[in-house]
């Protein structure tokens, strides 16, 4: 029978689908909190996928990912509170508005590279942060904007389970979308610009135009991630979109694996879950160590240590490690 995969190939996707559908309904007291972590990770995957397109595939450093997410979040907040538009309009609108902002921010940066480009995107970060805090009429400043989460089949969208069934498929779409992008001419042009922008220009790629496309696509992803964050947290406040969050996103793609489509997934899991793992470990060790200040600072130290270790010993990130492990497993199984 042609065109039908052998049943063995279906086993893993079916198992994954089963776990995806059943897990939120398990009875453990930990389920809700794990769902919260999964949801935050999924939002991170969307945002990091966008940054990966810009930095990992096009080689353009951006220190402003958090600010672009903020644009998306505020777009959703303003459209839902002032105009009352539904979420299925607000979310794409968040992406589109952020794309426009990204193009405006990206245009002056087109001729810059490396350190200078990083500084230009950093200035966009600070400028947008300033606007979030001080444009009271639009953003309500530091007071923030509260969103009443929309209802889906009578359930609030920010319910952990409901949100899980929205954000996880969107995260999957974002990963598949970025993977497919790099099978197209546009994606290959991005890679060419990253590897040798002068040579890319010589073979006929309009480097400036494609850099702008990269900023636009990355900003769209960031805007959608920000919009999702807004619906989940229901309070939009400038504090959530500061430079430290931008650095978290850069850490996600470095640790996950720049220029790989699964890198944002592994990186997001790492950045969201490692502090949790350290927190839990230190809670167990703290009565033994009996030192409060060490306990609190240890998280930051371990987090920073892992980032440095990855940069030195595994610059291709977790994606490369996982890829090698899977390869060894496959060879091991084949030998049997």
């Amino acid at each position, binding site marked *: 029978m042609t065109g039908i995969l052998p049943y063995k190939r279906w086993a893993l996707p079916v198992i994954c689908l089963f*776990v995806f559908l059943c897990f939120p309904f398990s009875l453990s007291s*930990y389920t809700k909190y*794990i769902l*919260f972590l999964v949801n*935050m990770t999924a939002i991170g995957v969307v945002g990091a996928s966008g940054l990966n397109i810009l930095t990992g595939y096009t080689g353009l450093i951006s220190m402003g990912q958090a600010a672009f997410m903020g644009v998306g979040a505020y777009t959703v907040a303003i459209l839902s509170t002032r105009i009352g538009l539904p979420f299925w309009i607000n979310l794409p609108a968040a992406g589109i508005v952020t794309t426009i902002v990204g193009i405006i921010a990206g245009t002056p940066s087109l001729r810059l590279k490396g350190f200078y480009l990083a500084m230009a995107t950093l200035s966009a970060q600070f400028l947008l942060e300033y606007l979030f805090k001080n444009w009271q009429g639009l953003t309500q400043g530091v007071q*923030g904007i509260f969103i009443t989460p929309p209802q889906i089949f009578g359930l609030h969208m920010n319910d952990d389970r409901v949100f899980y069934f929205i954000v996880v498929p969107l995260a999957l779409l974002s990963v598949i979308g970025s993977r497919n992008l790099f099978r197209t001419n546009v994606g290959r042009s991005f890679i060419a610009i990253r590897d040798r922008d002068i040579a890319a220009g010589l073979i006929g790629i309009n480097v400036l135009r494609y850099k702008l496309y990269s900023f636009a696509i990355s900003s769209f992803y960031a805007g959608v991630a920000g919009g999702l964050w807004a619906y989940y947290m229901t309070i939009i406040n400038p504090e*959530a979109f500061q430079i430290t969050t931008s650095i978290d996103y850069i850490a996600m793609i470095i640790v996950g694996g720049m220029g790989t489509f699964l890198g944002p997934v592994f990186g997001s899991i790492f950045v969201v879950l490692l502090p949790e793992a350290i*927190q839990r470990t230190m809670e167990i060790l703290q009565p033994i160590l009996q030192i*409060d200040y060490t306990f*609190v600072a240890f998280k930051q130290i371990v987090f920073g240590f892992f980032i440095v270790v990855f940069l030195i010993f595994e610059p291709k990130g977790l994606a490369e490690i996982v890829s090698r492990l899977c390869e060894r497993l496959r060879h091991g199984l084949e030998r049997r």
Partner: protein
Amino acid sequence: MKKMSSLILFCLFAISFLPAFAGEIPVGIYGTLTGTDTDVNGMSYGPRDYLTYVNEKFGGVMGHKYVPILLDGKNQIPEEVKVFKRLVDVDNVVVVNGWSTGGTKALRDQINTLVKVPFQGQSLIKDVLDPEKYPFIFLLGPTYEDQVIIGMNWAKQKGAKTFAFLHADVEYGRGPVRNAIEEKIPEKLNLKVLADIEYPGASPDLTSYLLRINELNPDYVYIQDSVNNTLKILRDAAKVGVPASKFISNCYNFSHLITETAGKDAEGFKALQINADWGEDIPIMKEIKEFGKTHKIAKEDTYYVKGWVQGKIIHETVSRVLKSTGGKIPEISEFRQRVRDEWVKLDKFDTGGGTPPLSYKNNQGHSMARILEIKGGKYVPISDWIKND
């Protein structure tokens, strides 16, 4: 690969069946353990240590021991939301002792409608004090707005005609000042507000803002911020010739860090006091010192004493509930509701001298403060306990 998938599936379902513990009373506490505002984080260690003291001295309450869970909110709203969710969803805490103004405002709907858990924050902003709308949120002392009024009233009595506000660009700074101005408090007191000066909270240098104060020369300046930024203000004020005696600040500036760090630059600086200081000869200090014989006390300051008082309130309300159930721990939603109901019944509750007696009829323990001034390197009271009516 199939074996790997089956193993993963098994692990995920195994997690589903982890049992919860029984016979313990988890209490959630989060504060700024790292980040800004750590100067006043004794308020988070205090309740944790008091509940530990109760466990060790009295065996808990009716045989059930407290499990105080202290987490780091980093003074960031997203982090506070995350730790709050963990405390109420995973740890099933009976009470939450929270922290920041922004975090408390972000969580107020969850606290009062979705989760319904008694919440005692360190924020004293008026926006969350509403027994009708937010029945589960409790404030220990006078709101920031009450403190502004007390400060301005005192200034008026000293013959002041002009005033200025100085605060950071966060909700903790803007909110109370905005509320005070919207309620026309300066106008009611016949004081002219010359400026409402806002600075970036993380800025290491505030000289330009103090130059503006110097230029405007108000009679008094109210600082709506905490120790770490106040230290910068006093340092930079001394540089530009603005005397510390011009500044009045809220209860989160009654700290020996100011006298020790700013030295003579802090002479004349005034702060409000809403609870006892460390080292006073009062019953609550005897408890703390007893605890200190066998434990390291994280912060020996007035904020730790405040935290200890908050621990006492939690213990009192939980004890009352368990006495009414004959020692049986109710189901968590019922437990939280009953603790909340006992909280509002607290009337003239004696905190061992830590604060004036507390009555929570309107979800606010007390509304009194007195003004202290730094003289000779020490905080000296310069007013009686003032209640804002």
